[in-house]
C-alpha cells in the first residue's frame, strides 16, 4: 500500500459546541472525527473552560475539498461569536477509501 495525502483539520473550540460541530462535520462530508480535551488561552479570553469544561480539540482527516468546506463554514458560522481556532495540514494515510 502506498500512502496517499489527506488533509487533517484541527479545531479548538469551546466545550458547548460539541454537538453542533460534530453535526456540521458529518454534514460536510467527514467520515470520522476524534475529540480530545485541552485547556488554553487565546485572544478572546472568555475563561469559558471554568464553567463549560475544557475546550474541545477536534481532529478530522478528510479530502482537501471537504477540509476547505469545513474551514469556510467555521469561519462564517462561529469565528465571530465563539472562542475557536482551526488549522489544516497535510498528512499521509494508507487507506484513502476510509476517509472519502
Amino acid at each position, binding site marked *: 500500500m502506498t500512502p496517499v495525502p489527506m488533509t487533517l483539520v484541527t479545531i479548538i473550540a469551546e466545550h458547548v*459546541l460539541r454537538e453542533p460541530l460534530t453535526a456540521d462535520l458529518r454534514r460536510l462530508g467527514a467520515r470520522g472525527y476524534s475529540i480530545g480535551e485541552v485547556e488554553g488561552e487565546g485572544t478572546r479570553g472568555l*475563561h469559558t473552560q471554568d464553567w463549560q469544561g*475544557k475546550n474541545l480539540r477536534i481532529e478530522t482527516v478528510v479530502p482537501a475539498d471537504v477540509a476547505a468546506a469545513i474551514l469556510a463554514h467555521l469561519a462564517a*458560522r462561529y469565528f465571530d*461569536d465563539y472562542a475557536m481556532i482551526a488549522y489544516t495540514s497535510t498528512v499521509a494515510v494508507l487507506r484513502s477509501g476510509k476517509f472519502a
Partner: protein
Amino acid sequence: MNTVDLLQANLLSPIALAFALGLLARVVRSEFSLPKDVYLGLSIFLLWALGLQGGVELRHSSLQAIAGPALATVGLGVLTPITTYLVVRRLGRFSTADSAAIAAHYGSVSAVTFIAASGFVKAQGQEAEGFMPTLLTLLESPGIAVALALGAYHAREGERPVREVMHEVLTGRTMVLLLGGLVVGFLIGDQHWATIGPFYDTTGAVFRGVLCLFMLEMGVTAGARLGDLRKVGGFLLGFGMLMPLAHGTLGAWIGQVAGLSVGGATVLGTMAASASYIAAPPAVRLTLPDANPTYYLTAALVITFPFNLLIGIPVYFRVATWLGGAP
C-alpha cells in the same frame, strides 16, 4: 433571634466559610481546586439525594396541599424572567441578547442556594414542606424557556433553535437527578428508604459534609471570576443584589399566599431570588452567542450566589416570618 444574630449565625456556618475559603484561596493565587470529575460527582450526589428524599416525602403530601404552591412556583417561573429582562433592558440599557441571557439565569434556580435555604430554616426550627424539592424541579426550566423565547426574536439566522436547546435543559443532569430522584424516591417508599436514608439524608452529616466540599470548589470558581466584577459595571453589581431582594420578597409573599409555612415561603422566596449557573449558561451560550458571558456568569455566580447565601436567605426568612405573623 434578631436579624443581626441571624446574619451572624449564617456567616459562621460551615458552608459559608467553605465558600469563603475557596474564594480566598483564589485571591492569594493558590492553584488549589477540586478535580472537575470529583466536583461533578459531588454535585450528582447532592442532586440525587435531594430528589430521592423529596420523592420519599412527596408520598406524605396530599395533592391538594401541593397544588397551590406548585401553581405559585410556575407563576414565578414565568414572571421572574420577564421582570429581569425588563429591568436589565430598560434600566440597564443592555442589548436584547444580554438582557435575555441574564433573564434566563434569574428565571431559573440554583439548587445549592435551595439547599442552603432549607438548611437555614431547619436550623431556625421552621422546617419547610416535604414537597419543596418538587417545586425546585418545577422552577428549573420555565424561566430559561421564557427568556430564550424573549431572545429568539432577536436571534440571527442559523442559531440553534430554542426547541433543540430546551431539550438539552429538560434532559440535563439536574433534571435527570432531581425529577428522576423524585420518582424513584416516591416509588421505593419509606421501607426501602430506611436502607439508604442515612447516606442520602439531606439533613445528615454525609450530605452536609459533601456540601462543604462542594462549596469550597464553588468558592474557587467564583474567586477565579472576581476580577470580572470590575468589567461588569455598577449597574449589574446593584442589580445582582436588588433583583434577588425583590424576587425573594415576592416569592416569600406568593408562597405565603399559596399556603406555605414560614419555612416553605422562605425557601420559595430563595428559589425565586436565586440565579441558575448550571443549566442556564450552556443553553444561553448556544442560543444567544452574542450575549457576553462575562455579564451573566459574573452576575449569577459572583454577585447573586454569595449575596443570597450570606444575606438574602436570612432576609427572606425575616420577610416570611413577618408575613406569617410570627415574631
